[in-house]
């Protein structure tokens, strides 16, 4: 499998490690009233789609950047690769 890194171009999947669902970016506010419920959802509940899935990959044997990879779990086709920090910033994180 080849992951087309947005800065470095096509790189072999062996250079990357997989973390999990890209929704991990949306960490709940720990000081909110409903923090316990929100963290229960955040830590334990995942969608398990047969089809397009957004997931976090880490370019460990490369430039150490985190990526959000959109991958089809049925065909393994990768349709989109973004820098995770760009995704996080568009969602209002890392201000």
């Amino acid at each position, binding site marked *: 499998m080849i992951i087309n890194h947005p800065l*470095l*171009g096509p790189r072999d999947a062996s*250079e990357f490690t997989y973390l999990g669902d890209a929704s991990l970016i949306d960490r709940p506010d720990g000081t909110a009233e409903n923090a316990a419920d929100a963290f229960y959802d955040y830590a334990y509940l995942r969608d398990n789609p047969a089809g397009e899935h957004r997931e976090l990959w880490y370019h*460990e044997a*490369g*430039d150490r950047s985190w990526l959000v990879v959109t991958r089809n779990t049925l065909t393994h086709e990768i349709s989109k690769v973004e*820098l995770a920090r760009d995704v996080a910033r568009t969602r209002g994180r*890392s201000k």
Partner: protein
Amino acid sequence: MHDLVALTALGGTTPRVDTVGPVTCSEVPDVALASVTARLGHEAATQDELARLIGTATPTAQRFAGDPVTAFWSGPDQWMIEAPIATHEDLAAHVKTAVGTVASVTEQTDAWARFDLRGDGVNAVLELLCQLDLRQFQSGHVARGAVHHIGCFILCRSADHVSLYGPRSSAGSLHHAVLAAMRSAH
């Protein structure tokens, strides 16, 4: 305490040099290093200050530039600065003065060991060592990748001159890997 002996990363008192066929691998201990990371919101300012420091445009992704103070790209909004230790022993302080509060600077001199590969058959050795696309790996190009499971920076200074930076604590393993590849290729 004032009678310490300077040792290279491989533990010798002089830099190790090995030649196999057309390729020579030499340990390069006389380099000072410091890393620079732009602070959030100051990415453009960091590039401006670095350009002033190295005397040329700040290198973009996978590039390096500048002489004798060189900056090479190490990640998004991150660079490593290298300079001769004879003139820049206090490189981190020098860089910190240059970038001020727009970036964070970390001393890296003794964190890395550098090996230079020279000779016509350098690419044949690199083919065995790493997964780089060597057709794209031209002069001025830097890559970060795994060499024998060791995370390294690889700089293409010219067609027959490549620098390898690996973690100093793994210098022996990296040197072994490079020598094994040189013997296999030539």
